């Protein structure tokens, strides 16, 4: 049984075609699996698309991940966005007014992080495995160096960062589901919010047994601005002054056109 997930990646095709494309992918995957038998790697996986294009109509996206395992076990999928720096501001009351009174910079933190798994990750993987492979929010480097903050203070900064990233959709809670279709084939979906950071993501698929990773696959996913949006962004950053002049001219002309239209009408 293959359910059809509506992925925005398939907007190019009518809905029924999108569905048949999914089905085709499943068939190809299962075929590969049957052909290669036990000689194949323990885990195979691929994405419905390796490129998320941010165009004018972009309002978030869903990515499908298909895969297969050749022996029983658990699966964890980790989607990790490019590392970036975040600054957290803390507000305090000064003379009755709430203002930023302290700030903390977190360096090289994943800009996006989402996990899907066949069960609670604490149960299906050992803590050493999670630490080694940066699985779970405790292991992705949100810790502050002791020179900046320690103990309870560091903890409250870390929690604040996590809370804000979860709220914005950059980080997602750890219970995304992996659905098995039969014994070997599985699929999962993850959602990219409208304000998704651009860059190269890594999608890692782990096959675990007894809490240990027995095989892993990592596949890249590129999120980038495409078309007019990308060109405007690039132009604004490369030729700021010229961009400013163009913006002014557009505004002047539209104001003038507005006047002309209404004078006659």
């Amino acid at each position, binding site marked *: 049984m293959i359910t059809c997930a509506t992925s925005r990646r398939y907007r190019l095709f009518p809905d029924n075609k999108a569905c048949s494309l999914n089905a085709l992918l499943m068939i190809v995957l299962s075929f590969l699996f049957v052909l290669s038998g036990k000689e194949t790697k323990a885990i195979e996986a691929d994405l419905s698309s390796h490129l998320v294009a941010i*165009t*004018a*109509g*972009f*309002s*978030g996206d869903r990515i499908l991940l298909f895969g297969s395992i050749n022996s029983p076990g658990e699966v964890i999928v980790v989607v990790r966005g490019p590392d*970036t*720096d*975040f*600054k*957290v*501001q*803390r*507000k*305090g*009351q000064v003379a*009755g*007014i*709430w*203002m*930023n009174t302290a700030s903390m*910079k977190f360096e090289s933190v994943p800009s996006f992080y989402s996990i899907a798994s066949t069960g609670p990750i604490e149960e299906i993987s050992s803590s050493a495995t999670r630490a080694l492979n940066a699985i779970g929010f405790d292991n992705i480097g949100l810790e502050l160096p002791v020179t900046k903050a320690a103990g309870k203070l560091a903890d409250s*900064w870390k929690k*604040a*960062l996590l*809370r*804000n*990233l979860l*709220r*914005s959709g950059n980080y997602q809670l750890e219970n995304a589901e992996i659905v098995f279709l039969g014994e070997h084939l599985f699929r999962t979906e993850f959602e990219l919010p*409208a*304000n998704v950071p651009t860059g190269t993501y890594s999608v890692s698929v782990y096959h675990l047994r007894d809490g240990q990773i027995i095989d892993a696959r990592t596949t890249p996913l590129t999120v980038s*601005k495409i078309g*007019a*949006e*990308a060109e*405007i*962004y690039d132009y*604004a*950053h490369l030729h*700021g*002054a010229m*961009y*400013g*002049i*163009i*913006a*002014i001219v*557009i*505004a*002047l002309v*539209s*104001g*003038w*056109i*507005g*006047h002309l*239209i*209404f*004078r006659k009408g």
Partner: protein
Amino acid sequence: MQIYLPIAEISVDIILLLAMGGGVGLLSGIFGVGGGFLMTPILIFVGVPPAVAVATQANNVIASSVSGVFAHWKRGNVDFLMGWILLIGGFIGSTLGVGLFTFLKSLGQIDLVINLSYVVFLGTIGLLMMLEGIKAVFRRRKSGGVSRGKLHEHNWFHGLPLKMRFRKSRLYISALLPLGIGFFVGVLSAIMGVGGGFILVPAMIYMLGMPTAMVIGTSLFQIIFVAANVTFLQAAQNQTVDVVLALLLLVGSVLGAQVGTRIGAKMQGDWLRLLLGILVVMVCGKLFLDLLIEPADLYVLEMV
């Protein structure tokens, strides 16, 4: 229908943006102000980063002011000499203002300064306008007409040097006065993402003593150039001008401003002042409350 804004990096409903532009443009046409003091807070509320909201709004102010200034120019309501002198001050002020904006942003205090500027400057002006409007409306009710006494009050600043004659406004005052006002409004327009009409218009009426009819056209004339300067500097220094956002807003605001100018011409000056005062006080009250009420999350995230 959603559209992705390339510089703001968020996706917003097109209809919402058009409606926002139209509503604010209507008010800006009626009252002869750029409307930035309404649009900037609304943009921030919709989720546009404050730095992008301020810079993009400056771009949008150009369009609505251009379409408004033609109408006033036709009626001979622009004092160009006064406009140019205000403009020299405005250019210097807005250039320094954009520098100050960049500096405050690096300190993480730009949002606070934007909010406080709104509350202090807009709030004061709004209250004054409201009181003045109420007084004038009641006076007319009593006497059945306003008898105009002196053209304007004489204060210490009328003793300043560099006196110039402004024929259109029938004034003989020091050029330093419009220069200083232009400078001050220039700084504010860079920091607050406003044309500065809400300071400029009352300053021209009460401090310079210009005829009310002349004030709106002349202030729009000055605002066009100051807003253009702010747009240019923000685009060059901070890359925060979103042309797609600006274009969508200005389609609405240009249409709204045309309708507004017509409505404004039919309304009495005192009522205009009273209504604008009420509107301004309401916006400020909201912003002031935001500063006083404890935020839901004391920690805020910033992309670096």
